[in-house]
């Protein structure tokens, strides 16, 4: 194709089509750039910064930065890994994430990211915030203790479910996910099967009564590290 864009990630040539972000082009080529707020079916958000790469020497969010001809992207370098480790580390200490007991454990992207980055224990101090639970909905509950403010629920509700259920309120450390109703989730038109529910990467929005029904060993990230589905595409994408 004449309008094909070529650039490199860690020295590997990547082809992109105009309009693709660096992250989308990397995914298509089977190169994994870690991310939490980005989701294939949702518009880019650029908020978590886990996908930070260096583009021609400058840090950029790969999920929002367009692919451009000839750019040199640094992704899987020690420097970028250190940046991501630090970000993920902060996400852990800002909330109350107790993987050992959390029902999302093994299926949680934050936990899987920590494993992939080799984070055994956070370097920063835990803040132990006190955040409320919303269990009013018959099928879904929100545990804000585990929210990483990725905004996926906000976008999935709007873009995939065509509903206006979630929004962010507050600023800085007080920023949190709110529902578009006065008395909690039960007053919204959210349904248990909505994409906004399954889009949550962590155990903050969960379908009720599912709990620990998948045994240890059978959960998504028990079997493969996060990102390996993308990397598995590499050989076929290269053809």
């Amino acid at each position, binding site marked *: 194709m004449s309008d094909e864009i070529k650039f490199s990630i860690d020295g590997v040539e990547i082809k992109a089509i105009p309009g693709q972000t660096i992250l989308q082009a990397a995914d298509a080529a089977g190169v994994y750039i870690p991310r939490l707020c980005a989701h294939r079916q949702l518009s880019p958000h650029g908020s978590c910064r886990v996908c930070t790469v260096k583009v021609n020497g400058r840090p950029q969010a790969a999920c929002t930065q367009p692919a451009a001809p000839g750019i040199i992207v640094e992704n899987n370098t020690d420097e970028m890994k250190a940046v991501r480790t630090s970000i993920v580390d902060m996400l852990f200490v800002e909330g109350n994430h107790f993987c050992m007991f959390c029902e999302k454990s093994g299926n949680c992207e934050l936990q899987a990211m920590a494993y992939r980055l080799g984070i055994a224990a956070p370097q920063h101090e835990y803040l*132990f915030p006190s955040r409320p*639970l919303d269990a009013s909905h018959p099928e879904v*509950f929100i545990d804000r203790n585990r929210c990483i403010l990725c905004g996926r629920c906000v976008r999935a509700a709007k873009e995939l479910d065509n509903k206006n259920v979630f929004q962010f309120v507050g600023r800085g450390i007080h920023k949190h996910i709110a529902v578009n109703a006065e008395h909690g989730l039960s007053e919204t038109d959210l349904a248990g099967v909505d994409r906004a529910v399954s889009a949550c990467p962590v155990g903050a929005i969960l379908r009720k009564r599912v709990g620990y029904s998948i045994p240890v060993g059978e959960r998504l990230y028990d079997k493969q590290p996060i990102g390996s589905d993308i990397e598995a595409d590499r050989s076929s994408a290269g053809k």
Partner: protein
Amino acid sequence: MTAKKIIIEPVTRVEGHGKVTIHLDDKGQVTDAKLHIVEFRGFERFIQGRPFWEVPVTIQRLCGICPVSHHLAAAKAMDLIVGVDKLTPTAEKMRRLMHYGQMFQSHALHFFHLCSPDLLFGFDADVGIRNVVGVAAKYPELAVQGVMMRRYGQEIIKATAGKKIHGTGAIPGGINKNLSIAERDALLKEIDQQMAWSKAALKIAKDYTVDHLELAKAFASFESSHLTLIREDGAMDLYHGNLRAIDKDGNRIFDQVNYQQYADYIAEEVRDYSYMEFPFIRSIGPENGWYRVGPLARVNACDFIDTPLAEAARKEFMAVTGGKPNHLSLGYHWARMIELLHSAEKIQMLLNDPDLQGEDLVLKGERRGEAVGLIEAPRGTLFHHYKVNENDQVTMCNLIVSTTSNNEPMNRAVSSVAKKYLSGVEITEGLLNHVEVAIRAYDPCLSCATHALGRMPLEVSVLDCAGNVLSRKATN
């Protein structure tokens, strides 16, 4: 979420000494003694508002020593919350296997690491030798057996709960996995050896008690009531049953009580010197209604054991007291090993049961608002009581752990030792040793009590009748 609890409490427990106070009257005679156990009620607050299906997993953070017991007791309560009175055979048997695995590893750990040094070297032996390292040096095969038996129990827990600690196997209404053929065969391969070691451990405990019967009778021995779960036909059942309480002579105080009504039969009293609540049998009252739980109570109170080797061992045990309840604190060790063998027999039976490969794992029913789950944990009857609102959130939780029930018996045991070994106000090494051995018989779930390598960290104080400390000494 009061997250502080999670981080701070275990640390405090690990570092804390068990505190014992011995009280003297105005003539300097021992009146009583108290073991001060700081019980962590924080969990009951922590789970307020949490979704009920989370509890069988999160409750395990309460106790690093028998998490599986809490896992199962909570799951049993949550079965009822989701309206399931009877599990599928696969679910019930998987849970039983998990429980016997836990019982097996807990009893093996206690016997080989904590109790055997006392029995093999004698209570007065130098603490430098009287520990698990000493056992390993003098009886290397025993130390190895202890490790291998513990590991075997943990493998069973892993195969049934998913992980060796903090597994997720039991879920409201059932279990999340069955036992694969590969898992079954790996466990079956070792069961004969485990059975042989269990018999040998039982023999050590039995021989010791029979050979030292006079010592055992004179050491921290006192009459008490006993409480346990019991099967409908009177058999020992560590996983499920109804409540039975017997008095010191073996007469039934109550029997076959549905434990959903436990609060009509057992009450709790808070005493000012301890955070711990003291449970007692209502019909007898707070003064004398205390009771023992755990291996001694279970062997005393059951009519029979439904596995042949353990039943033969039970008969020998009961013969020592002419069929009447055995009140020796040191009898706990023997009773514990009878249960170890019983667990091994049950494990063997279950591993050969094709129901464990069944596919029917979870049932559903009509939601309820309140339920009680009981189980016989390694250390005794464990009560879990919950209320859950219409939003699926826990609104009330009451736990009675076995160490709480055994608190008064442990006070009596220490008191009896103090009366015998304390002269004046000076706390001798001998007194410290004997206090330690007496408490250890009950296998209390204090982290300090399972301090595997050294001695139990204990601080003993002698107080006069005005509450002034006359002397204080700690193990180091």
